[in-house]
């Protein structure tokens, strides 16, 4: 009966080592696949954080511009309401009824022309004001819908009919004049209140601006931390790839050493 030769201890160890390293290589390959999936997710997050930061930066600039624009516009409307209303009345009143006659230096038709220009300006100003409100609402709705939701701008608009009741001239009768002054003052107050409301609307943007600035600083520092996490993940993948390659190479190395051992033993 032929005796079966038992494999040596060295051969068994080499077989075991080769098997273990091949298994390790497979495990590291799986880890690489999983880490790559996570990395893709992180990459997407990195891009979106970057876009978020850029958007926030633009938002802050837009909020600043909007607030500044409202300040400028409200000042413009305040000034124009008062001058156009008063001066139209001043130049359209019969020169004989006025205590002081600036019309001494203007001919009657020129005085009326100036008065009408102020009246036209007043009408135009109301149109400009309403257009400005629409413009702010459109910009606000597209970028900061919450701002107009919190403080609706539609109510701020001035009725174009309001100016129809405005009487830009003085009359002889004092009682009648008192009524006219009362009505004119109501119209002036109404317009003034609307402009004040527009001016106050900028506080909504200022409030959003403060919140956006805080968010901006937080997101900026978060982005820096996120870049570190991303780099860490990238390094982890590199290590897994290296370990997988090393395990694969060692697995093959032990197989080769096994062959060499078997051949040398036979020989």
């Amino acid at each position, binding site marked *: 009966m032929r005796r079966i030769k038992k494999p040596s201890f060295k051969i068994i160890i080499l077989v075991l080592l080769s098997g273990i390293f091949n298994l390790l290589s497979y495990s590291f390959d799986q880890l690489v696949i999983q880490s790559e999936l996570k990395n893709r997710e992180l990459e997407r997050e*990195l891009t979106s954080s*970057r876009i978020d*930061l*850029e958007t926030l*930066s633009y938002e*802050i*600039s837009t909020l*600043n511009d909007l*607030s*500044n624009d409202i*300040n*400028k516009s409200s*000042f413009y409307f*305040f*000034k124009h309401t*008062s*001058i156009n209303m*008063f*001066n139209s009345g*001043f130049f359209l009143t019969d020169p004989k009824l006025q205590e*002081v*006659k*600036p019309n*001494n*230096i203007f001919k009657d038709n020129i005085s009326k022309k100036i008065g009408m220009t102020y009246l036209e300006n007043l009408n135009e100003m109301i149109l400009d004001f309403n257009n400005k409100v629409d413009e702010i609402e459109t910009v606000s709705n597209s970028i900061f819908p919450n701002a107009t939701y919190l403080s609706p701008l539609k109510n701020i608009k001035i009725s174009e009919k309001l100016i129809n009741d405005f009487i830009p001239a003085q009359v002889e009768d004092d009682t009648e004049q008192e009524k006219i002054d009362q009505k004119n003052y109501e119209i002036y107050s109404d317009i003034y209140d609307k402009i004040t409301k527009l001016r106050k609307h900028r506080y909504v943007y200022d409030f959003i*601006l403060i919140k956006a*600035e805080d968010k901006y*600083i937080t997101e*900026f520092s978060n*982005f*820096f931390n996120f*870049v*570190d996490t*991303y*780099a860490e993940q*990238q*390094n982890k993948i*590199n*290590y897994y*790839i*290296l370990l997988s*390659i*090393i395990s694969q*190479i*060692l697995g*093959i*190395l032990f197989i*080769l*050493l096994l*062959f*060499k051992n078997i*051949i*040398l033993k*036979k*020989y």
Partner: protein
Amino acid sequence: MNKFFLIRFSFLNIQSLVNKKVNLIINLSIFVIIFALSASLISIMFENRIETLESKVTKNEINQLLYTKWLNRSPKIIVEINNIDQNRKTLKLFTEVVKLLPDDDDDETSSLYSARDELFEYSYYINEIVINNFKNIDLSLTDAILLSSSDTDIKNIEQEKKKFRKLINQFDQNRYERIKFVDNRNTQNWRESQLYYKEFEKYIQKNMQIINEQKLFFLNFVSKYFSSKRQYYTNKNLEHLNEISDFAKLETRFIFFAFLIQFFIFTILQIFEVTIESERKNEKNKKTII
């Protein structure tokens, strides 16, 4: 018997020749494996360094967002401040004539262009402009801190912050005085109220001085600081990118050098193995003949 021995001997010779070749292939494969191991170790070492540099480049790229924002925004703010000043001067060109028209008995006041229209509303408008500029200064200082890269930068920002606080104090004082003035209003007729409104020019002038200081801040600090930061981070990024390409070149050279060393060691080992093997075989042959 002799014939059988010769046949067996020649067969053994062929087998030894085959084994020799297999052994050489195995040795060569082991050499390749060790080379692959060292190459991957070198690669990973360099790749990690490159990865660290790349994350620095990404961080610097996000800094670009900050300095670009202020380099674009500060000239705009300066132009707006200049416009405020210019618009007021342009307005004054003809309003002085209008104010002197005989619209009332008094040359000090004007009905056509009242002091309220000229100064009262304007003082609030200027007030808001100052506040808006303060917001921008505060934002720019926060961004300046985020971009700071040295102690000099921090000290510079600290100095600007002190100036900023000083300006806020000036503004608050001016506002406090104006509020006090408004609270103490005591006007009986139209003329008195016009004279009262004329006092607002004082507060406008103080705020205009603050606005000019704010302009200087944007001109002397924001533009220069963020421009220098742009230069700094662009250079840093270029440095990092050059370092990355240097590392890539060094990596190739390292691997090639490692290959040469290993090939040299392998050749020496093969020579040793062949010499020892032939000596062992010679001794074995001698023993067989004896």
